[in-house]
């Protein structure tokens, strides 16, 4: 029996996107759990920031084996930028890394992000979505910076949840 490519790809596509949507939904379900456990005095933004920090630290540890310094600083920064963008892609976003204007500077651009629309269904403020993404990336860099002995930083220049049409991050080495 020849393979029915349309049927196979269609099934795979639906399942992939279903799984990506579940990533966002699972996060916001856990956010509700955390808020319920923390009680009425807890600030949702604090909880979101703490979650981004813990998750970012852990993801940062997992990317250490995939980074190396053999090809020098420029290549290292681009490979790190691609890993950060790649994380977004696995979640269902469209994201890529590109060379910045300054040496060693990498821009991470995301033009499609599934998180804000899922956040809306859970009543999450859009500013929290943007700040959590920034915190997640900053926390990912913590162990990477120490491990390679390079002071790395990342800053958010634009954010989709702020109505700016795209996310734009600048990844750079601090002087």
């Amino acid at each position, binding site marked *: 029996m020849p*393979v029915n490519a349309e049927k196979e790809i269609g099934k795979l596509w639906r399942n992939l996107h279903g799984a990506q949507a579940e990533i966002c939904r699972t996060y916001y379900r856990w956010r509700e759990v955390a808020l319920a456990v923390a009680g009425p005095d807890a600030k949702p933004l604090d909880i979101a920031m703490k979650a981004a920090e813990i998750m970012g630290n852990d993801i940062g540890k997992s990317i*250490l084996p995939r980074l190396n310094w053999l090809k020098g600083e420029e290549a290292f920064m681009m490979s790190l930028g691609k890993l950060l963008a790649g994380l977004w892609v696995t979640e269902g976003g469209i994201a890529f890394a590109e060379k910045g204007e300054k040496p060693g500077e990498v821009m991470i651009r995301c033009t499609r992000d599934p998180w804000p629309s899922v956040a809306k269904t859970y009543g999450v403020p859009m500013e929290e979505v943007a700040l959590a993404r920034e915190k997640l990336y900053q926390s990912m860099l913590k162990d990477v910076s120490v*491990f390679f002995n390079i002071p790395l930083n990342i800053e958010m220049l634009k954010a989709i949840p702020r109505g700016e049409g795209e996310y734009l991050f600048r990844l750079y080495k601090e002087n």
Partner: protein
Amino acid sequence: MAKLLFEWDYSSYPGAKAYPHLFKPIQIGNLTVPNRIKYAATEDNLNDHNGFITDADVEYMRLRAEGVVGGLCFMQGVYMDPARKGQGYVGQAAAWDDKYIPGLKKIADAIHGEKAIAGYQLMDCGRVGAVEVESGHAPSTVPQRLRVFKPMFEMTNAEIKEMVQQHVDAAKRGIEAGFDVIEISGIVGYLISNFLSSYTNRRTDEYGGDIRGRSQSMIEIIQGVKEVCGPDIPVGIRLCSDELLSDVRGNTPEESMQTYQFAEEAGADYISCTLGWQESIFPVISRDIPQGNWLFLAKRAKEHVNIPIQMAYRLFTPDKPNKAIGDGELDIWEMCRSMIADPLMPKKVLEGREDEVRHCVACNLCLARLFRDAPMTCYINPRCAHEHDETFYPKSVEEDDRKEVMIVGAGPAGLECAYVSAQRGHEVHVYDKRDELGGTILEASQAPYGDEELMTCTNYQKVMCEQAGVHFHLGTEVTEELIQDELPDTVVLATGPVYAKVPGPGGDRDNVVNVLDVLGGKAEVGEKVVVWGNRKPGIGVALFLAKQGKKVTLVGKDKSAGFDVNPSFKWRYMIYLRQNGIMAYNDCNIEEINDDGITVKTYDGYHFPVACDTIVVSEREANESLKKAVQGEGIELFVIGDALVPRNLSSAVHDGYRIGLRI
């Protein structure tokens, strides 16, 4: 005048004539070593989990001491802190208290009983330590690249001074226990190497900064240990000549050579030259690295210091170290894995019995086991780590109990079983339909990246069989009739596996060929090949074909390729698959074979086509043939190796050995 502990005269031995440089004396410090051979300190996880020496470890060491024929024999490194941060292996010996001295003395006495020089090693495992506690100590708090290791926290200045003193105190205990040489371990990611490396030492105090500052703790340790050792007990150190950590901004090779010079200036009497860290991304000791590959580092070390240089690292046969010593590029030949595989290796070389050496196949199973808190095991030597256990030695059978044993299959399982049972007094006949010994190893050894070394197993077994009087019937296929005619007392089926039929339509097409025929050059293979089976035989043939420029795809049922390869070697294969452009579809099966290629079915039901002109079958199944015929005759039956369950060379050898002891 230098001290000589034991008199050895090698002049009448053939090995001393063949390898004269290996069997001439050398002075380290004020001690004369009769030859250039050293069993280097190696963890074995055989000791009590509280650091006390066990009988198993004593006997393990005694046999290696016999092997070095008067040379240096080092026990494993001891950890020295009661907090156990420096402990890197669950069965590592301890020396942080006098209560450990009696156990250590047993090892020193066992080594001396073989007229060998007893070496004792101090080893704080640093970054790869804290195996039994939550966190470890390090010069700086640098995250671990591999999650398997515990988090490390920066030591205070006072803690560093305490650590130095712990080395000195542990050295005193070693001397009291009777050891003749004290060695400090500063390699592969252990604490001293952590201090030396720019990767893990970010300190700015007296123990950090430039390479001189990073060497300060090592210098204090050498000086402190030298002081308690006095002039008659040499002190050596194992140091990386190249960390192979350029990907994480580690030391340059030039900085490593500076550490050698600092060690010499501090009073070290010799340096054991090593390379790489456990977390290096470059291979150092696996089978894919050619023998003698790293000797240039020993040569470079000798250009930088004036004390003896020792080295192991892919030197498994005596020719290369003998030449290097003769050429002035090395002083002492160290061995770890080659004496795990054959504890008496140098002794056999000396006695002119080189063909009786069971060679290490550099699979690194021993290391994989140690890193996973399991006792030492050798892939190729079933008796390893069972030296103390009488049941692991062949026992002669009474004359009345001698049997006629028919072994079907002259592969690694059959040959191992043959010589062991023949040594016990049985009359053993080995049959094989081929004209050569070796079974599937003959083909497996054709795979690239060093697999030709697998044949050393067959070469060893052949010699042992010949010495034990095994009768060979090569070119003879065993049939039911032959069994009925011979009516042996025991039949051992070591026939190897049968190769699975590709499931689904098309499995009987002409372009479906067998892995053995491909590796043996008997099958025609096109340019686009699918290999079915993602275990070692599949990987081997896939790489063999990719090296010929063919486009190869691997399809297999296991969740990951190389499921049967130990983790300390598997990573090499994963890299080679990628480098050779081999796509692996794991957790998959072949649903059908058609004119264009195959249809792959994933574990969760997706289908996709893979174009190919040839399908190579490497999936194996147990071999049931002849079983019923033997059982029907009421003959004692054993099934071993891949015929029982398709596995690997190690399982075949271990099966053969155990059944050889049982018949």
